[in-house]
């Protein structure tokens, strides 16, 4: 074993001990040192063993190009699995690897303990290898192009799952009676709290107004898989695979800020416990400041997550008089509190509950929007900044779609409803995506959304996409 590997091994040993001492709780680790094009391959696919598709090739090419040109660099990649795989870039210096190992251990602790990850498949590396193999066999059997075309269509709607439905069971049954109030709103479920038994007449009347699905369904992928009339067995299998992969990635999408903040918080604390040489100290400082550097046009999750966590720790270590009186807070509970936060929150609740006025001011956060050709700062009020940030994180940052009718016009057509909040859809992309849904469903697709405060219905009938205002 080379001198470098021995040094690394000793460092990892020490870091692991320190991390355990801090109370971090992680899976057994598998560190793998890889050359750049391997790290970038894994980065593009999100996994070392995923199926093949040209879009991954495109991403890989772009990422690798940026690396070759020195524009960006991935130092590590960590997989949510047990044992936990971490890939280190070949040629990292020892101090780089020390920081990365500390960072990765905190990620693994997060994967293992955050409740949003509790249902993720910890054997996904093996599962994905198996499904990749199955997809390859479909390619052999049905032709590469046919499989690729199908994947193109599924990937276009892959985010539209219901992350709550891990058991593949809809929350409704096909023959269940319609809810009493037919105007289904986003607060619909609240009414259920005081629902009374329907009388017989009402029931009969509802029988005639039967809708399918009886309640709007968010899981578009599962809905198509179960009810599309023209899919073959292998195609349904691909839908299952894609849905499972999305369920696996979903918690990572919705905890990006927390997870990176948590890892940055701990790599700083762990490195501080170590004996570094002078050069290492300087290099670490440079690396660390690079990672948490804020950006004028986006949110750096490493920085924001770290600042919020540090602020929580501070506030729970030194509660104000009022907090002690009102909430019965005791001083010195900071560490305990952030461990609790890492267990129960996701980005949405994390920001909503813990981003304070002081933090927004200190970090000089603002809301910006496009005015003419300029991107201009439009708002600095802290609540507004916080709420906008939360807004952009709802549903993982993807538009919220509901299948309203799977038998629209009594003709088996699919009616999808975009739950418009304040942000319009990208119309060009919408019109290009509809043919993919049509391809999966086999009949006309309708999509209701809002443009400039007006309801619009987009329809794709297999030939053309048209729109009309409702």
């Amino acid at each position, binding site marked *: 074993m080379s001198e470098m590997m021995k040094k*690394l091994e000793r460092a990892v040993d020490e870091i692991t001990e320190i991390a355990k001492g801090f109370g971090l709780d992680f899976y*057994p680790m598998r560190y793998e040192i890889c050359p750049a094009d391997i790290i970038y391959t894994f980065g593009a696919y999100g996994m070392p063993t995923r199926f093949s598709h040209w879009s991954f090739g495109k991403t890989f090419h772009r990422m690798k190009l940026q690396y070759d040109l020195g524009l960006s*660099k991935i130092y590590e990649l960590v997989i949510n699995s047990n044992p936990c795989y971490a890939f280190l870039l070949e040629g990292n210096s020892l101090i780089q690897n020390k920081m990365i190992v500390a960072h990765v251990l905190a990620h693994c602790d997060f994967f293992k303990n955050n409740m949003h990850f509790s249902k993720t498949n910890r054997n996904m590396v093996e599962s994905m290898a198996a499904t990749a193999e199955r997809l390859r066999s479909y390619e052999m059997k049905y032709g590469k192009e046919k499989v690729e075309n199908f994947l193109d269509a599924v990937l276009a709607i892959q985010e539209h799952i219901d992350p709550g439905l891990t058991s593949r069971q809809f929350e409704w049954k096909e023959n269940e009676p319609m809810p009493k109030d037919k105007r289904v709103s986003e607060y619909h479920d609240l009414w259920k709290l005081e629902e009374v038994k329907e009388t017989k007449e009402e029931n009969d009347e509802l029988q005639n107004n039967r809708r399918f699905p009886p309640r709007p369904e968010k899981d578009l992928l599962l809905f198509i898989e179960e009810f599309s009339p023209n899919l073959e067995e292998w195609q349904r299998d691909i839908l299952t695979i894609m849905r499972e992969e999305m369920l696996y990635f979903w918690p990572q999408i919705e905890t990006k800020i927390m997870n990176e903040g948590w890892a940055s918080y701990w790599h700083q604390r762990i490195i501080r416990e170590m004996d570094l040489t002078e050069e290492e100290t300087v290099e670490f400082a440079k690396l660390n400041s690079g990672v948490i550097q804020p950006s004028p046009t986006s949110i750096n999750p490493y920085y924001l997550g770290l600042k919020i966590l540090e602020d929580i720790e501070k506030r729970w270590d030194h509660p104000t008089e009022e907090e002690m009186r009102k909430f019965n807070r005791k001083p010195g509970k900071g560490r305990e509190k952030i461990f609790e936060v890492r267990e129960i929150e996701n980005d949405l609740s994390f920001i909503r509950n813990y981003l304070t006025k002081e933090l927004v001011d200190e970090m*000089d956060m*603002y809301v910006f929007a496009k005015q003419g050709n*300029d991107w201009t700062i439009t708002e600095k009020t802290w609540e507004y900044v916080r709420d906008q940030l939360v807004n952009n994180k709802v549903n993982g940052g993807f538009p919220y779609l509901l299948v309203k009718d799977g038998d629209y016009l009594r003709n088996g057509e699919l009616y999808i409803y975009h739950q418009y909040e304040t942000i319009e859809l990208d119309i060009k992309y919408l019109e290009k995506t509809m043919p993919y849904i049509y391809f999966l469903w086999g009949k006309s697709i309708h999509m209701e959304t809002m443009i400039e405060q007006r309801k619009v219905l987009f329809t794709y009938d297999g030939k053309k996409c048209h729109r009309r205002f409702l």
Partner: protein
Amino acid sequence: MNMNEPLFIISREDWSLHRKGHQDQLRHLEKVKEAIKKNLPDLVSEENIILSKGKDVVKIPIRSLDEYRIRYNYNKNQHIGQGNGDSKVGDVIARDGEPGKGPGKGQGAGDQPGVDYYEAEITVEELEEMLFSEMELPNLQQKQQDEIIVSDIRFNDIRKKGLMGNIDKKRTLLEAIKRNAQNGFKQVQNISEDDLRFKTWEEIVYPHSNAVILAMMDTSGSMGILEKYVARSFFFWMVRFLRTRYEKVEVVFIAHHTEAKEVSEEEFFTKGESGGTICSSAYRKALEIIGERYSPSLYNIYPFHFSDGDNLTSDNERCVKLVKELMGVSNMFCYGEVNQYNRHSTLMSAYKHMNDSKFKYAIIREKGEVYKALTTFFRKEGT
């Protein structure tokens, strides 16, 4: 956790066989090529290419390779950013066209909007390769045997025996290294007879025929901007096609309004004219040139005529007669009519009743249809 299981393992493996990213990247490039092919009709009438005289690299937006999905309109959304501590409402932090500074290192792709479409760079040669692979001079006949065979040599093989002058040094050395290594020597001790490798050639023989193209273009006053543009871009690609694919093809340029004259290539593509239209003048000129210089027994003859069809009515009958005469000596006669308003044309109505397999026509209503005309006239046999 099993107590015997180590807390961590560090390993370093040989990844050289892991080519997945590269393989899928290749598939992506294939798709880019396919997309360019699908875009050929638009590219063929791309002004930049015609004006650049075919020297440049063209950038082609390929929209079909976007990964479409249902997403928010980035431009209509509100986003969050961070200043240096002194930001104010009203500050401009970025302008379109000059993207803001990227986020900190170590961050993934983020949620920044990517470029809206994938832009592929392609050289005009590559474009031609794709376009011309679908085309050929139809109905080409062999004329006068001795002029037809053209042979060429191509170095494309490596052999163990050959001329010392053609020795392949790199391969010879590699062989020597291999043999020495097999015998346990770290360095090359000697180069034996057996190590020598030579480049060898192959003779390629392809039949070639003499052909002449008579490019006739209407330059009368009724030819508007679009008409001229279409006719010129058609001839532009035709000439490039012939020059790259056939060695012995001559092109004669004839410009006509009420009278026709032979012009240089330069003049043909640049000069504007005006006046009325008498198409028969061009045909007469063509027949005259054929009679003087290009005997049908020696040459494959292809007259091409582009016009807006707005011919002097009394001339139509004469045109039909002359076209028939031209077809008698030619392999094919091609007539392209630029007719953007779909009007009832005079010349085309006269040609409608032409019932001869040698007569080909294309009606072009918009720029994009230049490609259609090219593939109609130069369709490969059997496609």
